């Protein structure tokens, strides 16, 4: 397993685990999934920005 596949596997397991928790929304998992697919998962600024954006949208919705 190469380094990227290793991240993908761990990410998959992490999301599975969190999605099964009541206080966790699929939307939150989506943030990290998207970041991984865009290859931006190692970029602190991008993670920060995405989380801010999703919470902002989430708050507007509810």
């Amino acid at each position, binding site marked *: 397993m190469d380094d990227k596949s290793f991240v993908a596997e*761990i*990410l998959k397991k*992490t999301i599975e685990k969190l999605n099964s928790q009541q206080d966790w929304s699929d939307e939150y998992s989506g943030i990290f999934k998207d970041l991984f697919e865009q290859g931006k998962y190692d970029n602190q600024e991008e993670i920060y920005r995405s989380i801010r954006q999703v919470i902002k949208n989430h708050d507007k919705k509810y």
Partner: protein
Amino acid sequence: MIRSINIENLRGIRFNTNIDLDNKSLIIFGENGKGKSSIVDGIEYAITGDIKHISSSCREVSLKKHAPHIYADFQDIKVQVEFNDGSILSNHKEPEKDTLAYRLRNSDLGNINILRRSQILNAIFAQPKERYDLLKQFLPLVEITKFENALKGVVDKFQQELSSLQTEIENHKKNIQVAFDIKDLDSVTSDNIISILINRGKQFNLEVLKDFKEIPEYIKKVDNYIECIGNINQDVVIRNLLNLLDEVIDKKSPEQFAKIIFDNINTKLDLVQKKKVVFYEEFLTTGIQWLQEENKSLCPFCESPIDVPSVIERVKKRINENSEYSKLKKEFQRDYDILQSELKWWEDNVNKIRSINEELNDENIEHLCKTVEDNIEGFKKLIPKSIQENIIKKNLPNWNESIYKIANHLKNEYNNRVLPKDTVLLLNEIIKFKNDLKVVYDNFIHINKKTKENIILNKKYIITKQFYEELVRQRKNFVQAIYNEIKDDINRYYSDMHPEENIGNIDLKIKDSSSKGSAIIEASFYEKNGEDPRAYYSESHLDTLGLAIFLALYKRECSKNRDLKFLILDDVLTSVDAAHRINIIKLIFSEFKEHQLIITTHDIVLYKEILELEKQYGGNNKFRNIEICEWIKDRGPILDDTKSEVQKLREHFTNPKIDKNILASATGTFLELILCKLRYSLELAIPAKYQDKYTIGDIWDNLYSKLKKNKEFYHLNSKVLDFINISKFIRNTSGCHYNEWAQGMSKDEIKQFTNNVIKFYEIVYCSNCNSFIKKSNDNEGYQCNCLRLLYNKKYKVLIS
């Protein structure tokens, strides 16, 4: 598989050192400091572009500065590793695409197939986190570490933002705490503050405050209430005015201070005399200064020589005789300063009163100010500024007594206009209440706003933290799974290394509490299980434990990358005893029989043991052995791969059970090896062949004719040379290919051939200086480095 290695100007290697492996494993023997590790460094540098133990050593040691040979620069380094597909990895050329070299360069393997003894000890004796870092190169953790680091950075950033937001909220609460004199900050809650404000409002019969939002309207009601009770601001102004008027009334007239000056001077001195005295005194004082500072020795009037100290003494005496006038001058100055200060007081007070009158706008107050100012002006005109002025003729100024009368009148008038004390107290309380309302309103606006921000920020923080922690947990599970995956191999290797010893059960574990990685090693020692092996194991047992872990990780890596087929072990068995290291070598030779091994050792006994073991694992077809005879500072290691080969050939020769074809093959191969060496040392003109693959025929004819020309050499060795010349076909007929005609060769004939090849080796190779013969310095014959072998027209041949 590696076909050849070329190293130049790296570490202990100055001149080009070429090692042809031909895909065989390589065993290098050399004493300490002979350049074994430099060869390993060269391979590592060619493959990875780095020499890890140098680049990650310490700040003072760097690849650029310390990788080159001491007489070379960084750009002089040339390293090259050629693989079995002909592709090349080097420090000066990128490998061609779709080759083994290219795949290796782009595989991020690092130096995972190279193990040095120092690495073993580092891994075993490190703390779990540092040990994990060492093991990290074997685990696919590069990208996940980047992900974790970025996430941790965001978690920390949100935490920092939360902390500063909470500090802001706390500061707003503290402002309210101070205003309301509340002891405990936790008691500064909306409910508590509303309750306090309601109670205070009740004291002033104000209606009940329900919400902080009502505060601006509520403050307007408080203002109305204050206005009904009285004008507190005006009351404050009047009280200040009354204080100033009291000061004026109590203040003495400046007239008496002026009178002192006049009386003092006029009674003690008439004008004419005073003028003279003053002038005379000043003249004498200036004269002394002039004599001292200018260093004069002549009288300024008659220009006759004078005794300066004596003159100064006499002048000082005269000044003292007039001291009464000096005293008078000082007294004048003192009295003058007092008067000026009094006048200044009056000026300041007038300014203060006039400032208050800006609020009251009272003509009588302005009249008082004007009167005082006029009087001050009059005094300033009449009072002399120095004792020299003609004061006798001036009249003593008068201070207008109406000033006191006006002040008293104003005092009476404004005393009737001040508010009663009770009213003032009530007003002060309600004004404080109003200010407190403002403090509450201003701070709670911010507290509410920041609290909302805090909730959202906390949400972001919790999501990121939760995700980060779960990611770390999952990564740990995966790493633990890898540890478990290699556990069997580690234990099998360790048990093979230490058969029938009551130790083992090695387990690698990841620490639960650590957010970063960790690697805890546990092992058993007799009845003790799950112990840190450092507590019980000997140094050599720890070494072999490290080696077992490394081999298991290497094997796992090989299963993922089929190109990884070469394992390099640099002096890793130093501390291990003879019995154990044979177990270990056997284990490595059998477990990695499909791999190319490069093993170095400084231990001659171990080297001999390895040579012995090679026979069981493929012998000459699988292994190549090199001894480093010596290391020369400005050349590098001197390699010799013939000594072990001749030893093997001698063993074959004395073995009665040896198959004649095997003997012929070994003899032919050894003869090829000698001829290749002589090709270089005697500088034979042989047409170049692809990859330097020469047969006996390619070199022998040229060499034979050259050696025959040296009469001394040929005279002594003609039997050996001629025999090989006529028997060399044995190499091709019996040694290489099956040939029916050659089957007629007897074993004795082949043994004779072997015997002559060994003799030929002894003629051309000096075992004293470990060198082949070469052209002598005068070009007249041949010699070895130490001249023990010397074939020259001028000298007799020396063979000690």
